[in-house]
């Protein structure tokens, strides 16, 4: 009997995924441990390994297929003494088109568009979207993306009233209980129906090229919309002089190079050229400590000093996190991802530097494990390498804050009544006001500034 190779569950909550790429083709010999295919979920690409030895008899799910259910057979593996004839009696019943096509039936002669494309109901790193059958049908008829709708039913399930609320932007959610006296309107974020046609019409119908939405783009859109609509943001900016930091960084990197720990030190572009470029992790091959590594460590230590800033809001209590796990925003070609430096306050600069570099490299290759980019207690986003002077970032829920780091650049500063030059880096903290008040945010920024401006204290 041929062995079925099944769609793996990459996380406990995963229900379906996309088959990104086959690394083996029909007829290839495989051995236990060989990588057979790459599976893509919302954010990560994972490898499927062979568990048995044998020959790929038949590929059941083509490359690029989307929305394949966990445990659906994706290929058949022939044992040593089996040949292709074993497939004939076997393949037929299981080789159903795994993706979205519904089984044809007399009633189901609707145009394919009427069948909810599975990608619309896919979600988010948290797994399956719970919605009532009626809500699903109403969303499908209205062209709404369920992933963008907040459920108000049992256990957060999306129910009819959520769809009705989403379909009537600007109107408060209709009371679910009819014929009752005063009902407090519940703010349910409206998900406007932004069809391509509508957006094009709003722009006056100029010609355009369409870029299909992938799962990550939908997650970014949903989470950040939710954040801006539900999290009361406020912003605090501080200027940090980083000349001392750059000097120590140069010395440390020179020592790393001299000790032969890494291939070569990073070019210390910032202090020497003064061009205001701070690489997230520096050159691809180089091994060194970047300004951003200092920022991560300083932020982590400052959160340790001001624990009230390392907090998240819940409807029942503010959660003060025991650990300081810093999510670092990393730009990808088609989106962004936030790998996490866990327990960053207990890691030295070298550990942070090597860990960040590894995370960034694997993030760009789409090889992060789910637990490496889901979670965290605070975020750091750095656009200094693009010459951005300062910016305000959107909080990544449930984090209580995100630190937006600008470019280090030479600016005139007044010291003791005299004009002089210093390398200044502006950092803006976005806080969730429900969990972190202005004074707490300011204390955190003051602690952060002290550490950055006196970097020796960071080495303690």
């Amino acid at each position, binding site marked *: 009997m041929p062995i079925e190779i099944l769609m793996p569950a990459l996380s406990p909550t995963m229900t379906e995924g996309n088959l990104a790429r086959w690394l083996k083709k029909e007829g290839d010999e495989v051995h236990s441990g060989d990588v057979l295919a790459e599976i893509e979920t919302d954010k990560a690409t994972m490898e499927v390994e062979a568990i048995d030895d044998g020959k790929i008899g038949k590929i059941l799910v083509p490359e690029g297929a989307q929305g394949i259910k966990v445990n659906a057979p994706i290929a058949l593996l022939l044992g040593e003494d089996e040949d292709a004839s074993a497939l004939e009696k076997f393949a037929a019943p299981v080789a159903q088109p795994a993706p979205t096509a519904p089984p044809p039936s007399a009633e189901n002669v609707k145009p394919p568009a009427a069948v909810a494309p599975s990608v619309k109901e896919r979600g988010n790193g948290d797994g399956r979207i719970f919605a*009532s*059958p*009626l*809500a699903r*049908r*109403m969303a499908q*008829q209205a062209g709404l993306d369920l992933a963008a709708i907040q459920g108000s*039913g*049992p*256990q957060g399930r999306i*129910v*009819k009233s959520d769809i009705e609320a989403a379909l009537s932007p600007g109107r408060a959610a209709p*009371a*679910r*209980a*009819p*014929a*009752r*006296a*005063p*009902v*407090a309107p519940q703010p349910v974020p409206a998900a406007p129906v932004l069809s391509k046609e509508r957006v094009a019409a709003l722009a006056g119908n100029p010609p355009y090229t369409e870029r299909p939405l992938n799962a990550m783009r939908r997650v970014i859109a949903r989470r950040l919309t939710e954040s801006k609509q539900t999290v009361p943001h406020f912003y605090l900016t501080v200027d940090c002089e980083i000349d001392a930091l750059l000097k120590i960084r140069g010395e440390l990197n020179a020592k790393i190079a001299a000790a032969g720990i890494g291939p070569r030190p990073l070019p210390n572009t910032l202090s020497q050229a003064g061009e205001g470029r701070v690489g997230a992790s520096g050159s691809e091959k180089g091994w060194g400590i970047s300004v951003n590594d200092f920022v991560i460590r300083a932020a982590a230590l400052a959160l340790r000093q001001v624990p009230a800033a390392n907090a998240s809001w819940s*409807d*029942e209590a503010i959660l003060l996190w025991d650990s300081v796990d810093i999510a670092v925003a990393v730009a990808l070609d088609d989106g962004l991802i936030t790998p996490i430096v866990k327990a960053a306050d207990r890691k030295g600069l070298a550990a942070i530097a090597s860990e960040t570099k590894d995370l960034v490299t694997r993030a760009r290759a789409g090889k992060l494990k789910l637990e490496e980019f889901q979670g965290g207690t605070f975020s750091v986003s750095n656009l200094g390498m693009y010459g951005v002077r300062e910016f305000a970032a959107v909080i990544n829920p449930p984090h209580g804050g995100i630190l937006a780091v600008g470019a280090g650049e030479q600016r005139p500063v007044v010291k003791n009544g005299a004009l002089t030059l210093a390398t200044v880096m502006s950092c803006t903290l976005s806080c969730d006001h429900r969990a972190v008040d202005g004074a707490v945010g300011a204390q955190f920024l003051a602690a952060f500034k002290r550490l950055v401006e006196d970097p020796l204290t960071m080495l303690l």
Partner: protein
Amino acid sequence: MTENSFDLIILGGGPGGYVAAIRAAQLGMKTALVERDQLGGICLNWGCIPTKALLRSSEIYRLLHRLDEFGFSAKDIRFDAGKVVARSRAVAKQLSNGVGYLLRKNKVTVTHGHGRLAGKGRLAIERDGKAVSELTAEHIVLATGARARSLPGLEPDGERVWTYKEMVPVAIPKSLLVVGSGAIGIEFASFYHDMGVEVTVVEMLDRVLPVEDEEISAFARKAFEKQGIKIHTGATVAALERNGANLTARIEGAGQGGEVEVERVILAVGIVGNVEDIGLENTAVKVEKMHVVVDEWLRTGEPGIYAVGDLVGPPWLAHKASHEGVICVEHIAGVNDVHPLDLHNIPACTYCRPQIASVGLTERSAREVGREVKTGHFPFIGNGKAIALGEPEGMVKTVFEGKTGELLGAHMIGAEVTELIQGYTIAKTLETTESELIRAIFPHPTLSETMHEAVLDAYGRAIHF
């Protein structure tokens, strides 16, 4: 906390109050329940339960008259009204004791007496006209229930003009006039008719069971009239005269006036909330049309005072009261994931013959709120089990929203439909569409197959009709 101070006090031990008390105790609240009469309230002592026991007797009596049809013979079939009533009382007693046990098990402090609000967070208890104690709590839930509404000129006297409360310790009269054809009136009409009483029903509106779907209402009327119940709709009792041992009722209405002579009259023209003498006077609790006004979380206008069940208005159903009790208490306790009651998902049952049950919108109300409607029907005569049972009289009607396939309502008449309606209620609560109901498998042979067929019929796919 002292002996008399609690987290929560509940005034009234009916299905709203005692369920709320048990739920509160489960949630860790120190809970007191105050009841002036018997635990279980009207439902358990005078309403739902004892009448179901009576109806069981009338059902058996009726079947005994059909013995030949099923292949039996017996002579001299009679009943002993005293025993019929005694059984009904025993059933009520057993269940009331059960409520007492459940409250003790959950460590709810039960106080007997009449409670009145006495200032913020305080409830004064009076027994036999004497003040006995005062309980305090941050939260007080009023669950004092309701009583039969009376009409001018038709005031119940407990002797010849009854409400549900007097008729339970039944005497079986020769003839009976039922005023009002809602669930309570029709149940009693059906019971007494099956016990051999000559029954006349007077309904002010143009059809019996006016809250039910029109088709069900018409089906029911036909069935009742076939059995021999006289029905006057669009009619009122203009006068009631005591005439020796009998009463003469003058019925006025659209072309069907006349006089009816009866031994007894039952008044079943709705109920009003027990809003008096519970200390609402000095509070911000708002009372409208004899019911306490509450919001979706059962809060009254007075902070810390809540009200549930019949006291807050229709539908006057025990299961609605219990559900409100739970919602109210869970909301007070800050339980996650509490949801307000959806009035469209409350099933209603009438235990007449044939039984009637429904949930959600009627076809007319669905159309009135502007819904595009699809309906399905299925008669019991097309159902194998119904025929085998000898109960082929009945039908099921479904109401779907045309565009979305939402199940808006379901309406049933026939044997055991009160046990079947929960299938549609679950479907509605889960917001299923016709698609899930069509795919669901109903066991054969059961009466529930009629429910499947009525869904199929709405989409032109009924198999057995």
